[in-house]
C-alpha cells in the first residue's frame, strides 16, 4: 500500500499523472470510483479548510468518511502512536488522512498500517497535497513552471507548506527563492534574501505564507505589525508587475497580503482552494483506486 507523507513519495511521472487526473476533474465531474471505500480523517490539530477539502474530494469519488476527533492528550494517556495506528488499521479502512502538530507523526503511523496514510500536514515538516495543488495552480497559469522564478515569502522555517513546495517546485524546474527575516529562514542551498525588493523585478510568482505564531516556542518577532512592515505583500511592493500571488490560507489580512491585493485579479488564493479539491481527488484515486 502506498502512502503520501512527503512530496518525494511520488515520482515525477506520478505527479504528472496526478496533475492530469486533477485537470480531468476540473469540469466538476463526479467519479464514484471509491464507492464502498472507507476513509478515516484523523486530525490531531484543528483545520477547517483542509479537512473540508479532503471530505468534498472523497465524497465526489463516492467514498464514505469517518471523522475521528482526537484530542491532543489521547496519545499522552499511555498509548503510543504505534498503538493508535494498529488499532485504527485493525478496523480495515482504506485510507487514513492525518494532521498533527508534530512533525513525523504520519510517517510513524505509516510504518504500522495497511491503509494508505495521507499526510494533511505535520508540524513544520510536510504538507504534500498543498504543494501539489500549488504546482497545479502554477502550471494552469504558466503552462509549465520550468524556468519560472517563485519567491516564497514569510516564516519559511516553520512552514510545512514551504518545505513541501521547495522540494516539488524545484523538481519541476522552477527556481525557488526564499524571502524572510533571518530567524524565519532555514539552512538551505536555495537563494535567500531578507529584502523582497531584491527579487521583486525578477519573479513570476510570489507565495506568501502565514506567520506560524503557534509554532514559535519563544518570541521571534516583536509583533506581527513589525514583521508586516517588511514582508507584507502590498500594492506598493508589487506595483503593476505581471506577478501572480499565492497563499495557502488562511490569509492574515494586511500582515501577509494587503486588502487591495487580495481583491486583485493577480491573486490566485480562491483558485488554489478550488484546485485543492481536484488535486485531492486525484491523490485519493491514485492511492486507493490505483491507476
Amino acid at each position: 500500500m502506498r502512502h503520501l507523507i512527503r512530496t518525494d513519495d511520488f515520482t515525477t511521472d506520478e505527479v504528472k499523472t496526478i496533475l492530469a487526473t486533477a485537470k480531468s476533474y476540473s469540469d466538476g465531474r463526479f467519479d464514484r470510483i471509491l464507492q464502498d471505500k472507507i476513509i478515516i480523517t484523523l486530525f490531531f490539530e484543528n483545520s477547517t479548510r483542509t479537512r473540508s477539502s479532503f471530505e468534498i474530494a472523497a465524497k465526489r469519488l463516492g467514498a464514505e468518511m469517518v471523522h475521528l476527533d482526537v484530542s491532543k492528550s489521547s496519545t499522552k494517556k499511555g498509548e503510543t502512536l504505534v498503538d493508535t495506528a494498529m488499532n485504527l488499521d485493525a478496523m480495515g479502512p482504506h485510507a487514513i488522512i492525518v494532521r498533527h502538530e508534530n512533525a513525523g507523526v504520519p510517517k510513524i503511523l505509516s510504518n504500522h498500517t495497511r491503509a494508505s496514510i495521507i499526510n494533511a500536514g505535520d508540524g513544520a515538516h510536510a504538507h504534500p497535497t498543498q504543494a501539489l495543488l500549488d504546482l497545479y495552480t502554477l502550471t494552469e497559469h504558466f503552462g509549465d513552471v520550468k524556468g519560472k522564478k517563485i519567491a516564497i515569502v514569510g516564516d519559511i522555517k516553520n512552514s510545512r507548506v514551504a518545505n513541501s513546495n521547495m522540494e516539488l517546485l524545484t523538481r519541476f524546474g522552477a527556481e525557488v527563492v526564499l524571502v524572510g527575516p533571518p530567524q524565519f529562514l532555514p539552512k538551505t542551498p536555495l537563494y535567500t534574501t531578507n529584502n523582497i525588493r531584491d527579487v521583486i523585478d525578477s519573479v513570476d510568482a510570489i507565495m506568501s505564507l502565514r506567520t506560524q505564531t503557534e509554532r514559535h516556542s519563544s518570541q521571534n518577532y516583536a509583533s506581527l505589525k513589525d514583521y508586516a512592515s517588511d514582508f507584507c505583500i502590498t500594492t506598493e511592493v508589487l506595483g503593476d508587475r505581471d506577478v501572480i500571488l499565492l497563499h495557502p490560507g488562511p490569509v492574515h489580512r494586511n500582515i501577509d497580503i494587503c486588502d487591495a491585493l487580495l481583491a486583485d485579479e493577480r491573486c490566485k488564493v480562491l483558485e488554489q482552494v478550488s484546485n485543492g479539491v481536484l488535486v485531492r481527488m486525484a491523490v485519493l484515486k491514485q492511492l486507493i483506486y490505483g491507476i
Partner: protein
Amino acid sequence: MVVTNAVVCDIHGERRVDVRIEDGIITEIGEGLQDAHIIDAKGAFLLPQLVDTNVSLHDDVLSSKNIKEIAKNALKGGVGHIVINPLTTPALDNEVVIEYAQNSLHELSGAKVDLMINTLKEDASLSNIAILLKKGAVAPYMSTIAKNNIAIKIAEYVKMYDVTLFCKAEDNSLINSGVMLEGDMSSRLGVPGIPDLSEVLHVSRMIEIARHFKIRILFKAIASPRSIYLIDKAKSEGVDVACEVSIHHLFNADSACENFNTVAKLNPPLACEKDMLELRQALREGKIDMLTSLHQPKSPVNKEVAFYDAAYGCDAIADTMALYYTKLVKSGLITMKELVRLAVQNPAAAIGMQAGEIAVGKTALMLFNPHEKRVVNNPNSLYNHQELYGEVTIL
C-alpha cells in the same frame, strides 16, 4: 586461576604475560605460571573493566529494580563501574533519596554502582552539597541552567571538597525550544532545532569559572567540536578542564534522525556530519579525555511517539566494549592502550579513583575476545542490525 596467552593491556601498553587471579585479585604476574585452573586466552585481551560516569537509569526512574538491572547490563558490556546521573525521579538532590539509593547498592551483582548528586534542586537553588558528598556520592553534577550567582557558589563548594564538577553545558532558553540539532536535517524534517551555540556558550562561561576558582570541571558528553577547541585551548593555558564524548556522537550524525527515528533523539543532540568528523579528528589528536556509552534507556511508551514528544536517549551499555573495540580500535582510530586511558583511567580519576593498571593487587578484570562477532538485535540501539566484534568474559 592463571590466565595465559592473553595480550595484557593497560595504561602502560600491551605485554604477553601470565596473570594469576585469586578471588578476583591479581596475586602474581609473570611467565610460565602454573595452576590447577589455567585459562588459555589465546587471541584475547586481558583488560581492566571499563568505568562510565554518564549512565542513566531506565526511564530515569530511581528504583532498586532499575539499579539491579543496570549493574547487570553494564557488566555484560565490560563496564565494571558506573556512576548514575542524578536527574532521576525522584532526583538525587536530597539526603532521603541518597540514602534510599545507597540502600539499593548493597548486595548488587554486576558492576559497581556509584551516585552523582545534583547540586541544583528542582527550583535551581542549591542542594545540600556538603551533606550529600559526605553521604558517599562520588561527584557533584551541575547543569549550566544554573545562574551565575548559584554557579559561583557551587564552584566554591567544589573547591572546598576538592572534587571534580561534572558539568552539562546547555542553555536553558535554547534547549526548551528544540529537540534536535538545528541544521539542514532539522529543517528538512520540520523539527524544531537547538543551535549548537547552546553548548558552546556555556562551555566558554564555565571555563572562566574554572579558571577563576581554580577548580576541576569535566564537561559531560560534549557534542560540538567548537567546545573541544575551547576546552583544549583552556587546558594549554593551565585551566583544569576536561571533556567527555559519547561513542554515539563520534559515529552518528543528525542524519540518523531521518524518518523521525526517535532512537537517534539524544541529549545532547547528535551533531551534523561535518562536526561528527571533527569530533573524531579531535579524538585522534588526543583532545578528548574520556568516553561514555551515554546509556539512556527508554520504554516504548516514551519512544514510539512523535519525535517532538519522544524521550531522549538510547540503549548502549551492554554493547560498550564491543562498540569501543569495533568503532575505535579495530578501525585504527586509537590503540587499545589509549582506549584503556579514555574509558578506564580518566573516568576513574574524575571520581577520585585509580584504575587502568594491571598489577598485583588490582581487581576488576575482563577477558575480551575480539574475534567473536555478532549482530546487534536491539531496536532501542543506534547499532541495531550492525555487526560488532568482541565478547566479554568477566574474571
